[in-house]
């Protein structure tokens, strides 16, 4: 498995502003993912971020609103732009690992709890 850290752990922001969330992994990984978990809901995939290529966004999520960077194999950022109260959520990054006996297992960071006023 991997040790995944996220910064900030939580933030309270004003509407119209932007917040960049950082995700750091303690080992090199090819696949990184960003999820959103709205209050009382399950996880929804925002986008998949591979190093060296543009992020792939899921239906309902666009690059202008959620720009993603993936500068190397251990780090990624997600920006929530022009925030509104509807963006209040927990944002999670995850990485995918494969071993000799398992594959495609995803491990998650601790999450960033965002509140937009």
């Amino acid at each position, binding site marked *: *498995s991997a040790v*995944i850290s996220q910064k900030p752990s939580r933030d309270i922001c004003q509407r119209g502003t932007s917040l960049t969330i950082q995700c750091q992994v303690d080992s090199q990984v090819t*696949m990184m*993912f960003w999820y959103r978990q709205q209050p009382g*809901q*399950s*996880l*929804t*995939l925002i986008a*998949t971020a591979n190093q060296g290529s543009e992020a792939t966004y*899921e239906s309902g999520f666009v690059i202008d609103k959620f720009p993603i960077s993936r500068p190397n194999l251990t780090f990624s950022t997600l920006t929530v732009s022009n925030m509104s109260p509807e963006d209040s959520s927990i944002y*999670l990054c*995850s990485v*995918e690992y494969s071993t000799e006996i*398992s*594959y*495609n*297992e*995803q*491990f*998650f*960071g*601790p*999450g960033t*709890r965002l509140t937009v006023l």
Partner: protein
Amino acid sequence: EDQVTQSPEALRLQEGESSSLNCSYTVSGLRGLFWYRQDPGKGPEFLFTLYSAGEEKEKERLKATLTKKESFLHITAPKPEDSATYLCAVQSGGYQKVTFGTGTKLQVIP
């Protein structure tokens, strides 16, 4: 489109009272079924991956089983520290996306 349905939404057990959580799924070619535990305010913690019908995996008081249409997470003699939301997720063949269910919130009372 892949679909995952978990039941019940919430479950309250007495300490030591064994039970099972259900995860029904619809995928076009199952690549893997995953179980996670999530504590309030934290990210999901990986528990198990199941790859094919008939497969079983165990970890302490938890045992996960898989059929062609559903998976069960059996909890034997639960303790209060097993209280959490348990999430089920599937990944279909040839596609990286993992689809999550809405979870079962388990409360174990001393």
